[in-house]
């Protein structure tokens, strides 16, 4: 039995954990791009479960469904990124709470009470490792360049 059922259970566990993590992230985080990634993470959990069930039942249906999940996820990514870009251009930030005026009528607005200070070790932005010699820059051109 035991191999097939126990192998299935391993993958169901991993899929369930991925789904739960994606759910938590989608509900807790406020950055729109992170929320989008968390939705994709939930889809990944479902995909792992589907493939595992398909292997357990010796049926291609699971893998077929995952192929279509990939298709729909690609569509979702295209639409979602276009929407995120639009919303960012209108509000200037990726905070989903900025759009809370679309909430249901009669609901109180959510206001941030306290914003914790950023820790010192978090004030690091990822940078690219410099490769090669630094090219000489024209100060004239540098004047016109915005921050890059």
């Amino acid at each position, binding site marked *: 039995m035991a191999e097939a059922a126990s192998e*299935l259970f391993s993958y169901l566990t991993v899929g369930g954990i991925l789904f739960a993590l994606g759910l938590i992230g989608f509900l*807790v985080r406020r950055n729109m791009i992170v929320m989008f990634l968390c939705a994709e993470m939930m889809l990944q959990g479902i995909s792992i479960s589907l*493939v595992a069930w398909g292997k357990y039942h010796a049926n291609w249906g699971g893998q077929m469904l995952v192929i279509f999940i990939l298709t729909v996820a690609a569509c979702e990514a295209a639409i979602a990124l276009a929407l995120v870009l639009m919303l960012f251009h209108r509000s200037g930030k990726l905070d989903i709470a900025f759009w809370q005026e679309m909430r249901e009528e009669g609901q109180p607005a959510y206001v941030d009470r306290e914003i914790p200070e950023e820790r010192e070790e978090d004030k690091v932005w990822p940078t690219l490792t410099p490769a090669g010699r630094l090219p000489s820059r024209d100060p004239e051109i540098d004047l016109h360049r915005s921050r890059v």
Partner: protein
Amino acid sequence: MTALFGEGPVWAAIPWNDLVASPLAWGVIAGAISLLLLIPGSSQRARTPGLIFAAASLVLFGLGLGRSESLGAQLSVWVLAALTVGSAGAAIAMRSAVYSAIWFAVSLLGTGGLFCLQNAQFLGVATVVVYAGAIVVTFLFVVMLAQPEGHDAYDRISWGPLAKPVVVGSSALLLGLVLGTVGPALGVIGGKPVAPAPAKTVAATTPASAAGSVPVAPAGSAKDSAPSTDAAPATAAAAPPARSAIDTIDNRGHMARLGSVLFSRHLIAVELGGTLLLAALVGAVAIVIQGRDERAKPGVGTGEERNHG
């Protein structure tokens, strides 16, 4: 699924004693604690206790996973599952959206590996290729949109002090219920299956509906699977699922059989998927163009627009 779980409410089917003895339950609890400590929220804490709880929960989950037939298979499942779950947890715990995207890409690599372990090589490669492209694009969006001066305040906070405990607690409860019902039903937790296994009618019914180009299942396998459907004793979980020629999922001729199934049984769905992709493409372009028109209306010059867009 009610046949799998039996009659009555879900929690009645859970053998609580076996569940408490299972490391999975403790893994869920440790994971919930580590997420409470690590996810950005209303208060800042030291990172070390959260990381300790995360490692403990990974170890407990590894102990609770099912056993494979060989040590190599078991090791690869452990490594890939730890990679997938650990980097997924890091993706939602990171303060910076850039690091979130990177960790999510790592998690996708683990997912692709898990697909390959399950004889789904095409899906493994497709996941890595499709999502890697999508994630690179997302990553570029983040780099372009986020402010390089520092992190934004909304990445450090959540929806008030209650949101994090409520969400993490309910998700852990949901995961525990799912594992606590599926595990005993499959006979993994507790030793004996509490419910009959799902009927193995799949292999017996599908070859009849297959297209003509698909090889017909040998009569023996259909005959073998027939008694197990109506008998369905409590030990039916012990019997391996009945297999037919078309439905055997293994490494030999994987792509050819995947393609033959995809383009025979699911041909209409393939066409619909292609149409959906086209519609999404047109929709994404339409959304962006419409936004540009509305922004151009208040009289901003077109050169200015080009710089912003």
